[in-house]
């Protein structure tokens, strides 16, 4: 998390091999990104761009999702399994044979995510997936992240949505002025006023209420707050 221009995207691009560090090293599972091509690193770390239109190029949703497994020459059976899982997680089954351009922008984002999931990287980075999503979209994202976690995939997300971050992530890294200024449990992050101030983030609304009425215990969730009153 962090303000626009804090360095979030540059940071994740380094994890994906798109940017190489000018100084120091980025090591992914023991592999130094400097020594491999971006495509090689990308097989380990998938990165879903903020704008799906920069990524999608096939004429149907299904061929878009199948593109990477085919590119890697994955056997048909395994590919089918992967595609099914990706479609299930992103909830885009009814669009499979549609042209990606004919589906609404927020759903196109899920197509881009599905295409990355099907390539089966160990880590997946989502760049502001919640932007423009409605209730259903946000819920799908939440269950998608859980699903990926079950599959053993580590998910990193850049987001400005505090509620989404608190509800779905165990660890939050806060960036400001091109630096990491805090890293830890959501409770510690959002109740550290200094960090909140410096990174210009906000507590989720329940946290704000708790602060305003002076309830202790780093409350972030509704049930906790209700219990304490």
């Amino acid at each position, binding site marked *: 998390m962090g303000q626009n*221009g804090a360095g979030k995207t540059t940071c994740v691009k380094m994890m994906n091999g798109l940017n190489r560090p000018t100084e120091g090293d980025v090591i992914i599972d023991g592999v130094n990104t400097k020594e491999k091509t971006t495509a090689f690193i990308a097989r380990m770390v998938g990165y879903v761009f903020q704008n799906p239109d920069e990524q999608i190029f096939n004429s149907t949703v299904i061929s878009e999702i199948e593109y990477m497994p085919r590119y890697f020459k994955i056997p048909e059976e395994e590919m089918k399994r992967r595609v099914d899982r990706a479609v299930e997680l992103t909830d885009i089954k009814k669009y499979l044979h549609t042209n990606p351009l004919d589906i609404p922008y927020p759903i196109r984002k899920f197509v881009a995510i599905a295409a990355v999931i099907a390539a089966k990287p160990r880590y997946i980075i989502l760049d502001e997936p919640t932007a423009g999503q409605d209730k259903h979209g946000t819920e799908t994202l939440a269950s998608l992240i859980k699903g990926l976690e079950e599959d053993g995939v580590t998910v990193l997300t850049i987001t400005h949505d505090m509620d989404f971050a608190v509800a779905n992530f165990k660890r939050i890294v806060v960036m400001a002025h091109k630096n990491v200024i805090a890293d830890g449990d959501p409770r510690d992050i959002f109740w550290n006023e200094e960090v909140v101030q410096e990174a210009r983030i906000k507590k989720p*609304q329940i946290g704000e209420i708790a602060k305003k009425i002076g309830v202790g215990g780093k409350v972030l969730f509704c049930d906790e707050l209700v219990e304490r009153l």
Partner: protein
Amino acid sequence: MAFIELKNATYKYPYTKEPALKDVSYSFEKGKFYGIIGENGGGKTTLCNLMRGLIPHFYLGKLTGEAIIDGVDVREWDTAEISAQIGYVFQNPFTQISGIKETVFEEVAMGLENLGVPKDEILDRVCQVCRQLKIEDLIKNNPNELSGGQRQRVAFASIIVMDPETLIIDEPTSQLDPEGTEDVFEIIHTLKGRGKTLVLVEHKIDLIAEYCDEILVMQHGSIAASGPTKKILSDLSVLDKGAMLPGAAIFGHEMQRAGKPLREIPITVDEAAALVAERGKAEWQSRLKTRALATPTGLRRWRTLTSPYSPASGWRLWGRTAPARPPA
């Protein structure tokens, strides 16, 4: 006075089977701030396009019913003149920059140049708006090299500077961080103070709750719910209509469910805090009463434990908590 009036407006885009708007009737009054919420594909943007005159002038397709803008049917409006009356800011900050101006200052000034406003007045107005939108430091920058958030501000400034009576804003903050988002809401709020009519499509429900006067919930092309913000957002049924509720409202309902009801359902942080304080005070007062009546401590404890009514949880009946009466 209704500025934009929709009467049974139904619209179908060309090449689609289903109409995007179905029988929408609503009247938008001058000087009010309207929030449009609801699921994607529910018709929010289409509604904006209609109120902006893009339907039926820019988008073909079939429009039935009436859409009256400032007393004149939208079909009879001149598309060019309507843009001077109704400002429009939308989601994508990249397509809203003209691409033909080399500084932010000139970019913001472009609309006024097109309207033929005298130069000195343009310079003054652009300065004022740039200050208001906190883009003073960017005025010499090339607008084509700004970040998404900065571009969105410039796009906003470019419209506000034209001083339209009504402003339709379609998801202006999806590219912005929390601070930028609040800035945008602040700007919109000051516009309201100047008597402008505002229509905003947004997903960020917390801010909608704080600023809007009235809310429309769009679902499947129709208005699923509409009315004053407080009324709409304190109602749980909005969740079934594909919209979100602010954390404060959820909190209010949860308190009720737990048998610790607040006097009413809050929709903002401040309201929630005030209601909790109010409730705390009421509870304290009733405790004081209990203490005055029962002198021995043991008896008091026994009474609070067994009494069928407690100010905290209402009437306790057969082990279940019935919804409490609001404290007097």
